[in-house]
């Protein structure tokens, strides 16, 4: 997370707010502006949108284009894609404009993929932020945005290193994060909400560090430190991952080089007797559809099949794989990851889920062709 710059946009009236998001933003997400610092493409920025009621909403984004302005050294013209500016945010602004939501607070975190209501988690900060002085509120919002970003990021993204980073780079990146986010550094503010956020952020960074370190040890890139955790599938991808402690036979740990050891696709392997209770024809059809990239129809076929064969584990897991594919086509990598892991939790022999997870971890998630190939 290379130092995310924060841009401030102040809108004194609700009309201006509406103008800002309906006119100023192109395609609802792109914001062009002049900034007094050199910026590089791809670097994260946070937009602090100050509303007339004094609430500042933090919106995540990253620089898409950047060009230096001639004659004005240090200034850059940038185009920012505000990925965090979604319908929820607009709905919230509208609600506030209509006077419904009075209590200033953080933007509600997007609901965790499988766990639905985000409300309980938000209660403590929400009540707290009213008393926070301005700079603390900004800090609070910054930390909230940071937490949201990190929760959905793969481990190397949390640390801000490349997938091939060495053990030293990983360590340095982690150290930088800890220097910035450790809860002890904000303990003197005596603000429980901020301490809590800092602790959550530190937990994420520490976990990312330990997981990457374990993966490096696995590959021989680092010295073994202590005992090992058997890497559950997908644990390098995102944090909302699942692994089943309840499986009959543990799945092979997906090391970084595990893809070669994964058996050929599902279609050729006989269905496992204890798990399969029929519905192979549905499976074949659904798989063919997924191979075409037709995730929505595959989902319907599988849903129909599950009515007939409600106990078939392969069908259930394939259903989750289909919904993961649908999520992937919408670019929702985090959701897809958790769906795939749910698929594995239901049926750990689901090779498609394992392969897709592995694919997500190693390759560009937007490469849809490669993903479809998993099913052929």
């Amino acid at each position, binding site marked *: 997370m290379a130092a995310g710059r924060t841009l401030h946009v102040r809108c004194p009236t609700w009309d201006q707010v509406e103008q800002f998001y309906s006119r100023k933003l192109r395609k609802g997400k792109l914001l062009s502006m002049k900034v007094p610092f050199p910026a590089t493409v791809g670097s994260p920025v946070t937009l602090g949108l100050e509303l007339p009621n004094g609430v500042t909403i933090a919106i995540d984004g990253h620089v898409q284009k950047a060009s230096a302005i001639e004659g004005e050294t240090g200034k850059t013209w940038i185009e920012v894609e505000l990925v965090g500016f979604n319908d929820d945010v607009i709905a919230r602004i509208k609600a506030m404009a209509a006077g419904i939501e009075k209590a200033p607070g953080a933007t509600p975190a997007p609901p965790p993929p*499988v*766990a639905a209501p985000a409300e309980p988690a938000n209660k403590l900060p929400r009540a707290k932020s009213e008393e926070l002085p301005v700079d603390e509120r900004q800090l609070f919002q910054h930390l909230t945005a940071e937490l949201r970003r990190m929760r959905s990021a793969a481990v190397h993204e949390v640390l801000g290193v490349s997938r091939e980073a060495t053990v030293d780079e990983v360590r340095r990146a982690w*150290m930088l994060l*800890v220097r910035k986010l450790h809860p*002890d550094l904000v*303990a003197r503010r005596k603000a429980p909400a901020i301490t809590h956020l800092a602790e959550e952020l530190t937990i994420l960074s520490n*976990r990312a560090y330990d997981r990457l370190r374990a993966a490096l040890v696995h590959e021989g890139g680092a010295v073994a*430190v202590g005992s090992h955790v058997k890497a559950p599938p997908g644990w390098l991808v995102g944090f909302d991952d*699942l692994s089943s402690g309840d499986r009959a036979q543990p799945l092979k740990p997906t090391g970084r080089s595990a893809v070669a050891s994964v058996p050929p696709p599902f279609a050729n392997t006989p269905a496992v007797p204890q798990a399969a209770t029929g519905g192979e024809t549905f499976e074949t059809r659904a798989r063919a559809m997924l191979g075409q990239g037709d995730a929505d129809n595959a989902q319907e076929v599988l849903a129909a099949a599950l009515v007939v064969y409600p106990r078939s584990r392969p069908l259930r897991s394939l259903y989750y794989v289909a919904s993961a594919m649908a999520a992937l086509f919408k670019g929702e990598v985090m959701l897809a990851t958790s769906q795939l892991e749910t698929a594995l939790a239901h049926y750990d022999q689901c090779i498609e889920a394992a392969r897709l997870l592995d694919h997500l971890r190693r390759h560009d998630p937007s490469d849809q062709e490669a993903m479809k190939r998993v099913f052929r």
Partner: protein
Amino acid sequence: MTRSIGIDLGTSNSVAAVIDADGVPRILTTPEGSTTMPSLVWFSPDGPVVGEAAREGLDHSPDVTIFGAKRLLGRRFDHPEIKKLTRTLPYQLIEAPNGDTWIALSAGKLVSPEEVCALILREIRRMAEAKFGAPVNRAVITIPAWYDAGQRQATKDAAQIAGISVMRLLSEPTAAALGHGAHRGADRKYLVCDLGGGTFDVAAVDVEGGIFEVLATTGDAFLGGDDVDRAVVDNLVRDVRTSRGFDISTDTIAVERLRLAAQRVKHDLSGSAGANLHVPELVQLPSGKGVEYGRPMRRDELELWSAPLIRRLEPPIREALARCGRKTSDVGEILLVGGMTRMPAVRREIGRVMGKEPSEIANPEEVVAIGAALEVARLEGTIEGILLIDVVARGVMMSLGQSECETVIAQSSVVPTREHRVFATRQDDQSRIEFDVWEGESPDPTDNRHLGRYAAVDLPEASSGDVLVMVEVTIDTDGTVRLGATELVSGERLQLEQVFHAGLARSEVARLARQLAEAS
């Protein structure tokens, strides 16, 4: 205004310190004017007596005078070392209903080690309150680095009973490095060896730009000055038998007097090559006449008797270095902490293993408490630029039913951290899932320490495998373990039921705290 203090709760001696307004560390002194307070509680007929005054109890009623309670804190009764202690301690140990070790006082009264430590902590708290003239209710308490989650929780419980809220549990080697002022010197790789009254701790600590990073911690939970004393006593008992012709091994009072004399002579022998051991009245003859016992002792005699213990110093040091992938030559400075490191044989042995002379610390007994006081100041924001990063000494594992233990959080993971496991129901309409949480490294549950058995209850009715329970294990900065559970399909938080747990129950801790507060 309330004040906070740093406390080194030791096996044999406890020390408390604060950082003054001018930034100078100050050690609090006992009413007797000493900087260290013996960790002793004498359950006298008139109520508990703590500290120096309790030494009197050692002399005539060793069965109700508790020393070394820290070694029993959060320990299971069936632990082999506790078994060994049961045979040698002058007071009686007993197994609590949940398998913990408790102490049986003579009047049939039972007392938990948490309560004994609480009495010591309350005495320190009173001492500090008398000095400041203000209430003291927050503290940083130091603990051995290898303490498991059960022992950490027990320490926190003891503090709560004493009316102290724990700001942080700080590992002793880290506290020692901090108290030594490692952050002020050049960046360096330290190896801290802390040999106290009852415990041996080793930690590899890197100090870089004010950041203390603990890379690995190991130790021996049952190696310390008390063991040396016991080795000396065993030999003296044999000597009494051969030279005087009577067996005192079953006479607890005589053995206790011999132990006190052995302790004194051990201290003397750290400074000189020879000293005199003297017990004015070892036993009473049936006629009522006292028997005196005395003999000269040489340092090499002491070293010979304690050699088997000294040899146990090497493995934890090697293990700590191995865990962080270091060679002995990578270590920049060796810090020796704890009263026992004054013994020349200990310094020599550690110097031999490391191939380098350990540094001299002027006040090895006080440096840990000073570190704790610095930590207080750091957490309150009066000193800046220091950050402590610690690791878990043992992995956390989970198991379901009869299955093998599976590591959830690996040893040497950086704290705070969190990991999770997902369990699925195996039967239709299964309403609860029970699982065990362990601390250790082995797939075999009997090799690990059982932290507790928990159950996710009131699961929604659904067919087998459709209910997924995610259990999250969080280890916080203190190294204590917290659990949380979520039902994944609905996303609802689940209540976890404690089927079995080690240590005192929460309600029991609260009750004892009230009781102690009312008594004082």
